[in-house]
Structures are given as structure tokens and as C-alpha cells.
């Protein structure tokens, strides 16, 4: 039993290292699902994913199968994907439209979009004098304990108590502000396609990689070099290669030492921000046309503020990785201790000219599709990482890079100047992990 092997989980995490079991033990994984994913705010989807009444999409929170559904009242509901009668799954498709109401495929119980029982076949004859009926809440589909949305991004918590969504997000809400503010209309809409890729590694390995500024120039060297060669060829022929080549070649042209110029900001609950970007504000005609539309919508000063936001990546623990300047979002769904699903979405800036959409679309296709030129090598490393951790070749994972040189101000840990490759984000995530797991509730 876990109790005997690891009596105190808090001993698994030291300030600069973590026990390997944290990544490989199936019982620790079950506890993580209970104490983290099924308690705190987890991303369900974007409101524009379910525009019409009855539109639904399935979503997994921890081990729980749920539905995000648009009601007739225009509200968005999050329900367990389960019929209260015999436990049947309600919706068998990944997404769709359920029509006027949900109807169970087994005994035809029907429910409103908010989960309330609507009818049971021959209800009066079959259930008169029993405890079952419309007045019994156990006869309705169970709702997620709490649902909140911020700028169109819907989150659910399966626990009745705990921080509100905004308290939980804290400074990391900038992921959504930065994304939406870049739209002249102040909001984004989903591009209706989800790339889904399975990684054979623990979910935390992916999260730790997202703000790891040292790995790109090692792991993505092959793609960076290849893209840089072709970029130069195109420039020779036509004068200027499309920006998408720069997005790839930067992995090689930004050398290891330059990644130290970046900075990470590390927040409570394990959230982190990586600042700095690879030149997404060029002065080409497309960008200038976009800036003109932005000036019209916001005025010059506010536009400068918006476009000056200096973010590369925001990590919202325990399962969301957002690249706001490129409108990309990756939701992380742990499927098992060594199996993780990523769901990758792209958003359109409402009111922005078409070329701006196409620019971030190019990144979505090249970096985030199932034929990615980038993540292929990440996934290979994640798998190797998990293989090594599952062995008895060592007991610890080290997060010692620039340890002791972080700067802490008001609960926020900043990496020191020119220490962008610090492992502070991993230390911060594991500190939060120990707090979540130690709460033991």
C-alpha cells in the first residue's frame, strides 16, 4: 500500500529535487486526481465551442467524464455525462447537438440542458408512490459543483468549496486578457478543430517542459536548423520568407545563452509565466494594417499597451498551457500515470484582418498538429524521461538550475536577471503540488 511505501508525501518534494515516484506511482496518480484535478479549477472549453442551444462537447476532469452544454437560456452548463437511472453514459459522441433535451439511449429518461429531469416513460404508472420523480434531485443529471467563465473560457471545479476562479487564476488570468485584448473586438472565437495527441509519459513532465527555456535549443535544433536553411533560400529568391519560418528557425538561431534573457514569474497554485517573444511584432504590411484596426478600436496608447505585453507562455496549473500572442491553447488531460492526452486549440481574434489569423494558424499547423515539426522531439524526450524515472537507476529528479538565486516578492518568485533558464517554474510547480497533495482532503 502507498501508506507503507511512502508514509508522508510531503517528503517526496524538497526545494530543489523530487522523488521519482511522484511521476511513476499509480497510487500517487489516483491521489493527484482526487486532490488536484477533481478539486480545483479545470478548463472545460470556450463558450464559442457550443454556440447553439443543445450544443455539447465532452470533457474529462481528472477521472470524471463531463459535458459542457449550451442551454436554451443561453447559459453554459457542466454536467456529469451519466444518466442517474442506471448510470448509462448520456452522450456517446465527442461533441454534437443533443436537440431540445438529453435522452438516454437505454430507457429514454430525458433531461433539460441544465440536467434537470424532464420525463421518464410512463412515469406516473411506474413510479407513483416511490421516492423517484421530478422532486428528487437524485433523478437529475449531476452538475459540476461550480462553473465559472472568464472572457469566454469556461472552467469547472468538482468541489463545493475552494477559491473562486479569479482567486485561483490570480496573475495567470493574463493568458486570457492578452489573447482577447489583441482582438479589436475584445474577444476571441474558437477555430472549430481540436488536434489531439497522446503522450506516453506522466502529465507533470509535459507541464514542466512548457516553461523550460533551456530545452528548445537542444531538443528542437534539427527543426530550427532545417527551417533556417530554407528560410535563407526563400529570402535569397524572393526577398523575405514568411514569418512562420522564423517561428521555427528561432529554435536554432536563439542560442542557449540567449534564452537566459527570458524571465519566468512564478505564482501561487503552481501557475507560471515565461516572458519574452521571438519578434512577433514585425513591421510588415500585414502587421501595420492590423495595428491600424487596433488603433481604431482602442486608441493609440491602449494599443501600444496591448501589443507591448511581453508574454511567451502562460502555464495554468494543473492542466492548461496558453501561448496568448499566438492564440494557442493546450489542455492537458491525464489518462493514467504514464499516459496523457493533450487537446490543442487555436482561436481567431475577432475583428482582426485575415492575415493575422493565418499567421497564428501557420504556427498551429506547424508546431501543434499531429504532424508537428516541433513536438515530435518533445514527446520522444518525455517518453524517455518517463522510462528512466520508472527504473531503479536513481531516486530523484533534480531542479537545481539557479536554485537559491530566485527573487521572491510578495509571494511571486522571479528568476534573477539573465537567469531565464532557471528551473524555478519546476520548483514552483512542485511546491504547489506538495501543498495540494498535503491538504489531504
Amino acid at each position, binding site marked *: 500500500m502507498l501508506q507503507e511505501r511512502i508514509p508522508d508525501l510531503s517528503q517526496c518534494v524538497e526545494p530543489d529535487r523530487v522523488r521519482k515516484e511522484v511521476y511513476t506511482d499509480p497510487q500517487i496518480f489516483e491521489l493527484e486526481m482526487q486532490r488536484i484535478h477533481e478539486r480545483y479549477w479545470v478548463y472545460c472549453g470556450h463558450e464559442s465551442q457550443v454556440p447553439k442551444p443543445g450544443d455539447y462537447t465532452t470533457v474529462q476532469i481528472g477521472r470524471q467524464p463531463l459535458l459542457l452544454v449550451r442551454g436554451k437560456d443561453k447559459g453554459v452548463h457542466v454536467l456529469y455525462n451519466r444518466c442517474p437511472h442506471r448510470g448509462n453514459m448520456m452522450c456517446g459522441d465527442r461533441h454534437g447537438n443533443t436537440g431540445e433535451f438529453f435522452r438516454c439511449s437505454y430507457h429514454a429518461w430525458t433531461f433539460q440542458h441544465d440536467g434537470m429531469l424532464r420525463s421518464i416513460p410512463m412515469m406516473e404508472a411506474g413510479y407513483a408512490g416511490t421516492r423517484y420523480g421530478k422532486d428528487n434531485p437524485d433523478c437529475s443529471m449531476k452538475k459540476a459543483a461550480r462553473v465559472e467563465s472568464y472572457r469566454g473560457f469556461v472552467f469547472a471545479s468538482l468541489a463545493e468549496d475552494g477559491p473562486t476562479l479569479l482567486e485561483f487564476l490570480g496573475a495567470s488570468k493574463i493568458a486570457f486578457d492578452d489573447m482577447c485584448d489583441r482582438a479589436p473586438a475584445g474577444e476571441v472565437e474558437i*477555430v472549430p*478543430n481540436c*488536434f*489531439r*495527441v*497522446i*503522450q*506516453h509519459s506522466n502529465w507533470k513532465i509535459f507541464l514542466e517542459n512548457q516553461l523550460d527555456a533551456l530545452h528548445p535549443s537542444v*531538443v528542437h*535544433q*534539427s*527543426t530550427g*536548423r*532545417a*527551417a533556417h*536553411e*530554407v528560410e535563407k*533560400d*526563400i529570402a535569397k529568391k524572393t526577398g523575405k520568407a514568411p514569418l512562420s*519560418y522564423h517561428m*521555427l528557425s528561432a529554435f536554432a538561431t536563439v542560442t542557449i545563452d540567449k534564452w537566459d534573457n527570458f524571465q519566468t514569474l512564478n505564482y501561487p497554485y503552481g501557475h507560471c509565466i515565461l516572458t519574452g517573444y521571438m519578434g512577433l511584432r514585425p513591421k510588415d504590411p500585414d502587421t501595420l494594417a492590423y495595428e491600424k484596426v487596433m488603433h481604431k478600436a482602442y486608441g493609440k496608447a491602449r494599443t501600444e499597451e496591448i501589443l507591448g505585453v511581453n508574454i511567451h507562455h502562460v502555464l495554468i496549473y494543473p492542466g492548461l498551457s496558453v501561448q496568448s500572442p499566438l492564440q494557442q491553447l493546450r489542455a492537458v488531460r491525464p489518462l493514467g500515470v504514464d499516459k496523457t*492526452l493533450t487537446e490543442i486549440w*487555436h482561436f481567431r481574434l475577432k475583428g482582426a484582418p*485575415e492575415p493575422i*489569423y*493565418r499567421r497564428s*494558424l501557420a504556427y*498551429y*499547423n*506547424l508546431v501543434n*498538429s*499531429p*504532424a*508537428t*515539426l516541433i*513536438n*515530435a*522531439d518533445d*514527446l*520522444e*524526450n518525455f517518453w524517455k524521461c518517463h522510462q528512466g524515472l520508472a527504473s531503479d537507476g536513481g531516486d530523484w529528479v533534480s531542479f537545481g538550475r539557479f536554485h537559491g538565486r530566485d527573487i521572491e516578492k510578495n509571494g511571486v518568485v522571479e528568476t534573477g536577471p539573465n537567469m531565464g533558464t532557471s528551473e524555478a517554474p519546476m520548483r514552483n510547480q512542485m511546491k504547489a503540488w506538495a501543498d495540494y497533495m498535503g491538504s489531504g482532503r
Partner: protein
Amino acid sequence: MSVKAQHDAEQFLYRQAALLDDKRWQDWIDLFTADGVYWMPPDASYQTWDGQPAIFAEDRDLMAVRMKRVLHPDAWSQKPLWGTNHVVSNVIVDKAAKNGDLVVRSRFHMLELRRDDVRHFAGQYTHHLKKAKGGYRIKLQRVDMTNAQAAYDYVLQVWV
């Protein structure tokens, strides 16, 4: 439809698949016209690759990036033993223009080995072929994977 067009189309598709299985990347890229595109949509309902999410949407420049990456000594994911085996069949010549251009549909099965693991893919090819000296060139190769909408267990590294 002439028997010759059917035969020529079949031979072309077999050779296309053989170049992939033999990892003759540059020879494979050279099958494409200067403006040729390799396209794998994420959904069969898509009508164009332009301005849409795509698993692959590559012109010859992007194909060159993919080839150079795969050949780079530090393409970590390509280090382990890997290989593919394509079988192309059910070849239907949908259109044969007077100038010799063809639109050809076919079905493929592809087995991929990586380390000790086998993956299996299948789907439909649609080829828009331009008549050229000594055969055809590909204007558009559309690949509709049967599992396009299913989660990918690991990713695709080279063209299917």
C-alpha cells in the same frame, strides 16, 4: 477511361509509395510540380487546405524543412529504428482531361514500425496529376486518414 491511363496512374501511385518506404525523400519531393501541395485535412469535409487547420499543408519549401529535419543527426525522435510499408489499391481514375491530366482516387494501408511498436494507418488518397515529360507530376496529394479525427498516439514524422 483508357486502360493505359488506369495503368499509368496505378504505376505512378505505387512508385510514389515506394519512394516513401525507401526514404528517398528528395526523389519523392521531386514528384511534385513547382506549386504542388501535400495536404492531410483533419476532417474529410474540408474542401481546401488554404486558411484552414491542417495536419499537413506543405508546399515544396515546407517539404524541404521536413526532409532536412529528418536527416539532421539530432532529430531525436528519428534516431530509433523506424520504417513504413505502404500498400496502395482500389485505384479509380475519376477524371482524365484531354491534355492527359488525371484526378485519381485510391486507398492505402500503411504500417509503421518505431522501436518495437507497430502503428497502422489507412485512408484515401486523392491525386491531382499533371501530365509531364516521362509521366506525371503531383499538383495536389490529398490524404484523408480514416483516423483523422481520432487522437494520435504519438505523432506523424513524415508524409503518409
